[in-house]
């Protein structure tokens, strides 16, 4: 699946998007955050406070317990500040 990062999450991870293949044990958005956090210091820094991270699956907002199976694109970003 494709993973995208925005705003300071993107800056901390160091890339805007990538394709990942997490193991089957990674079932939810929260699981994915935990799995990504272990990929290196940059990821650990980006996801150091998981509760402030917002997520979207295929362009729709989701909660941390949302299942990721079948997702084409998952995005992680800070709370929004548009308007």
């Amino acid at each position, binding site marked *: 699946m494709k993973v*995208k990062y*925005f*705003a*300071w999450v993107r800056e901390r991870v160091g890339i805007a998007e990538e394709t990942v293949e997490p193991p089957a044990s990674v079932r939810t958005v929260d699981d994915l955050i935990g799995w990504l956090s272990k990929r290196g210091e940059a990821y650990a820094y980006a996801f150091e406070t998981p509760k402030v991270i917002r997520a*979207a699956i295929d*362009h*729709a*907002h989701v909660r941390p317990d949302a299942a990721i199976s079948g997702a084409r694109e998952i*995005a992680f*970003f*800070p*709370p*929004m*500040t*548009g*308007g």
Partner: protein
Amino acid sequence: MTVVATIRIQETDFDIGQEIAALTKGRSDVGAVVSFSGICRGSENGEPIAALTLEHYPGMAEAEITRHADEAISRWPLTGLTVVHRVGRITPGENIVLVLAASQHRQAAFQAAEFLMDYLKANAPFWKREESPKGASWIEARDHDDAAAARWTKS
């Protein structure tokens, strides 16, 4: 008649008069147009700002605005609706966002415009980075923006 919202995300500025004319030109059923413009301030919490840079999530930003625009159209008897959101670098005094709601009577137009702005603030995937003499930093979300959006879901 089916109302289709006009939604644009663009780097360039917009002309409010031209956008209003697009909702009213050649029509006699529009009795009210409410216009909200969000403008870049020159200071934040007493600190001067040189510019804002707006980042967005292409695809999802359009989808979220469309979803909320469609909800506004289903909740209020509107004759037209326009949302324009700028991205990129914006300096103090420049426009950031425009919401226009048109209807036969003012109440629907006022309410729809306020509803859309409250929802866009809390749910549309845009992020502001500010440049100040101290350097650049991402603007933090405000809890009262979430509260403003939530009040529209109360029964």
